[in-house]
């Protein structure tokens, strides 16, 4: 199996003549280096190199010949332009009224001494003139077109390079004649490299003709860049967290983004005058939906309002509860699930977008993702909540976790977790958690205990991807999305 460089391939293809009608190779050629340059379009160095390779592979024979070339000398060139001396002599004779003697003729004809003599000699040889009574008589007219010698001289003149061996025998005879004329013909020997195909070479050419693939390619050359499709980098974190939770036995749920304040705040025991409910911090919609009485049981509304008034000692307002907000936490989704299903046992989680009316900075977004998980069971405690957290982090590759107390309006006791990030070499705050207060679970009719935990997902993504600015996650810079490998 032979593989050929592009140059070798081109050279081989120059060595034959192909008959398109008969669809076959008709002859193999012997070519000079210059021929090869012309036929392949390669430069002389490439041809030389290529021929060496082919010779090494036994595909071509290389012969160095000496070849004779002929060019015209100064006199020869003049003869082509002005005509041979005998022509000029005959033209002069034509213009005479009566024949002249040789001597007299000399003065009339515009030829110098040597040329004159040569003219007479050659004219006599060519049968153009005869001497009669010492006078030169015209025999026949000189016709340039019928003069072989002139034709030959013209041919030499017109060819840039005329090889002597390209002349046939008759032409060679004429040439030897011309060569006797002084300064007419210059004969030179030049070295000629002639290249022809070997039998193996011819075989190969036949194979190429029948479509065999022999061309090699440059396998180190760069290929056009294409980009793979991929999920968004934050979506990948969401997917990873989702997988961990399902693996831990949690059921995934989804919920609306637009919620009544009732679900987002009131059921979660956040008093109606709590600062978090102000427009400073929460997005209220400039729109209304049907009255909450149409969607929530009046029993539930009454129970929630009672709990509020008893604990916070203020007048609870249904109008406040009716207001539509963009949910500020995914706890809204899980608490609705609990209110609707009232499970005795459940492990449920939700990942979704939440909204805070904040000024966007490198640390804060107005819209981001939260994960919320809950466990409903009769015999779970705060230690179990810590255990679940620990396992969750461990599955994300975060082995060192610490807990300490904190506060949320709807959980008691409440804890927050910190994980140790190896690459950053510091503790990073992660999730909040706690047990839902009876003020939350009783109005919705839940008899079991509810463990709840959650927090922002962007923090996890920033740790995973080594980002400092949370806005990067939503910048959608293609250089980043195309450049971030899946294995981190």
């Amino acid at each position, binding site marked *: 199996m032979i593989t050929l460089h592009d140059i070798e391939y081109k050279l081989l293809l120059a060595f034959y003549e192909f008959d398109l009608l008969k669809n076959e190779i008709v002859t193999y050629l012997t070519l000079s280096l210059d021929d090869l340059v012309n036929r392949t379009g390669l430069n002389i160095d490439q041809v030389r190199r290529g021929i060496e390779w082919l010779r090494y592979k036994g595909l071509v024979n290389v012969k160095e010949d000496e070849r004779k070339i002929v060019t015209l000398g100064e006199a020869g060139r003049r003869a082509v332009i002005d005509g041979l001396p005998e022509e000029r002599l005959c033209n002069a004779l034509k213009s005479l009224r009566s024949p002249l003697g040789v001597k007299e003729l000399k003065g009339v004809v515009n030829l110098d001494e040597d040329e004159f003599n040569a003219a007479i000699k050659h004219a006599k040889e060519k049968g153009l003139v005869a001497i009669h009574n010492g006078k030169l008589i015209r025999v026949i007219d000189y016709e340039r077109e019928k003069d072989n010698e002139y034709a030959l001289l013209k041919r030499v003149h017109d060819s840039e390079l005329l090889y002597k061996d390209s002349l046939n025998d008759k032409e060679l005879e004429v040439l030897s004649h011309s060569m006797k004329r002084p300064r007419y013909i210059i004969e030179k020997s030049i070295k000629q490299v002639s290249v022809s195909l070997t039998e193996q070479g011819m075989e190969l050419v036949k194979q190429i003709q029948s479509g065999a693939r022999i061309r090699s390619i440059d396998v180190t050359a760069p290929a056009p860049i294409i*980009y793979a499709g991929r999920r968004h980098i934050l979506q990948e974190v969401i997917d990873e967290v989702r997988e961990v939770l399902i693996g831990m036995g949690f059921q995934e749920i989804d919920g609306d983004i637009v919620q009544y304040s009732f679900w987002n705040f009131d059921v979660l025991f956040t008093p109606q005058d709590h600062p978090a409910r102000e427009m400073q911090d929460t997005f209220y919609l400039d729109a209304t939906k049907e009255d909450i009485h149409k969607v929530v049981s009046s029993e539930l509304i009454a129970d929630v309002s009672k709990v509020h008034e008893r604990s916070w000692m203020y007048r609870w307002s249904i109008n406040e509860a009716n207001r539509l907000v963009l949910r500020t936490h995914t706890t809204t989704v899980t608490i609705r699930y609990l209110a609707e299903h009232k499970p005795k046992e459940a492990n449920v989680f939700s990942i979704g977008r939440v909204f805070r009316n904040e000024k966007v900075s490198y640390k804060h977004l107005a819209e981001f993702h939260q994960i919320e998980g809950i466990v409903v069971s009769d*015999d779970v405690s705060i230690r179990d909540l810590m255990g679940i957290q620990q396992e969750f982090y461990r599955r994300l590759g975060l082995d060192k976790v610490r807990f300490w107390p904190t506060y949320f309006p709807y959980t008691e*006791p409440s804890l927050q977790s910190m994980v140790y990030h190896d690459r950053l070499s510091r503790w990073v705050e992660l999730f909040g958690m706690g047990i839902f207060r009876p003020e939350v679970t009783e109005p919705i009719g839940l008899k079991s205990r509810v463990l709840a935990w959650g927090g922002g997902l962007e923090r996890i993504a920033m740790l995973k991807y080594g980002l400092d600015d949370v806005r990067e996650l939503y910048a959608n810079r293609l250089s980043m999305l195309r450049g971030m490998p899946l294995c981190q």
Partner: protein
Amino acid sequence: MPVVTLHKDRLERLVGRRLDEIKAVLPYIALDIEDESYEYIKVEYNPNRPDYSTDYGIARALKGLMDVEVGMPKIDVARSDVRFIVDSTTDVRPYIVGLLALNGRMDEEDIRQLISMQEDLHMGIGRRRRKASIGIHDYDKVKPPFYYTTVDSGYSFVPLNHRSSMSIKDILSNTDVGREYAYILDTKRYPIIRDSRGDVLSFPPIINADLTRVSENSRNLLVEVTATDLNAAYDILAVIAVTLCDMGFSIGSVEVRYENKNGSDYRDHTTATGSIVTPDMKSRSMSLGLDYVNSILGLDLDASTVVNCLKRCRSDAYNHDDKIECVIPRYRIDIMSAIDVVEDVMIGYNVSRLEPRYPRLKATGIRDKTLRSLEYARDILVGLGMIEVMNFSLVSYDLQYKMMNRANKGVIRVKESKSREHEILRDMLLPSLLDVLSRNVHEPYPQMLFEIGKVFSYDAENYNVACVIADAEADYTRAKSYLQAFVRHLLGYDVITEPMDSPYYEYGRAADIKLKEKVVGSVGEISKSVLENFRIKVRVSAFELDLSELLKM
């Protein structure tokens, strides 16, 4: 969240322990260390513990948890005959409570802590002074009894840090604090506290008089809290009382007498003689079952251990067999029901000692069906070589309508957004995708992007999917090829495309996408004018589908 500056040497002195020991305990009383310098530590505390608003309060809790001083702090309130006489404030700011703090001595830092606490209480319990506000006065500059009454806007006095008197009207319009809180006084008569000599102490909730300004020379203080919510006033007063007590003052009560016979509000809080005595430092009792405590915490503590834990949280506690009786100090306004006391047990036990344990979870894991289907959609598009992008649901009006040459219809706005970029809920995904293209014009083409996200209308929020294909030769046919592939691979159906006109698609090169007789989306070449708006120099073809609708089919 509010912040307190703890000077290291003060803290050591107040707690009676070394700083490194203290630092280790701080997180375990729910404080977040925000900043630390050579001299101080700044901590953030949760708004449910206003008693943490000074280093005294934090030291009180630390002393408990570190076993330096346990049980309820002793606060004796001596009865004085100082009186507040209240009239005519019913409509505007009905309530006033107060106390005397005698024979104390404050240094510069004490005063700073006091002012910081006052601010925190104003913002927190006081709900930005509307519910309640505080005045702390140098008692030696005034003479009781004190009158809490109303005046008109022309009334004038010398306000704090001013040298000449200003009228009420003037103060409300020409001082920072006046402008900020004027909205609370929607009235024609303004509350004023005066002493028996007619000197003004305060114009609540706006500003005190300069006369009673507190300094390091003040030995005796008068504290008054005026309010629209009496419970808030009492809570605030209790926190102040215990703090001043820790500072070394002796606390004296004041009598608040209502001369105005109007208003049923007073009936609940007055004694038979029409007056009340404040501060109210009465503690509360709450019962706790040992089983309940252990069940919540996952521990097996005995009753005396629980009692000790509660004492470390500065409550008093006793046990009768397995029932624990907890006596809670007045300043613990965060304790509402038994569960709050259980949390105290946890804190007194110290969270660092709690060992996580993994429970036996009885339910099992499962994907949400709709979200699972979204994953399928995602997989197909990634398989088609597209890159997923993620954009916000809240967008600007310009992006969603103007740049798309769309007329607006049914825009859902949010109120008072802090940024113009987050004004309305998007009703389609395409504009955001075009925005991404416009921010990536220097990246190599072709660019093929998709997004799956929620879009909003007045009565629903649904998932849409949208794709954009951008390069020199992006055309309708290409978009339709990808659209077909997507729907076929997702559902096994073929779509029908019927011509339609749209302001953001090129004329004659756009179609409605129909599936089972329903229009489920649109496909087309983005119009040159829209591309210009986005400064996108290549051609873009796109499609958008109602994915929720599709998945129902």
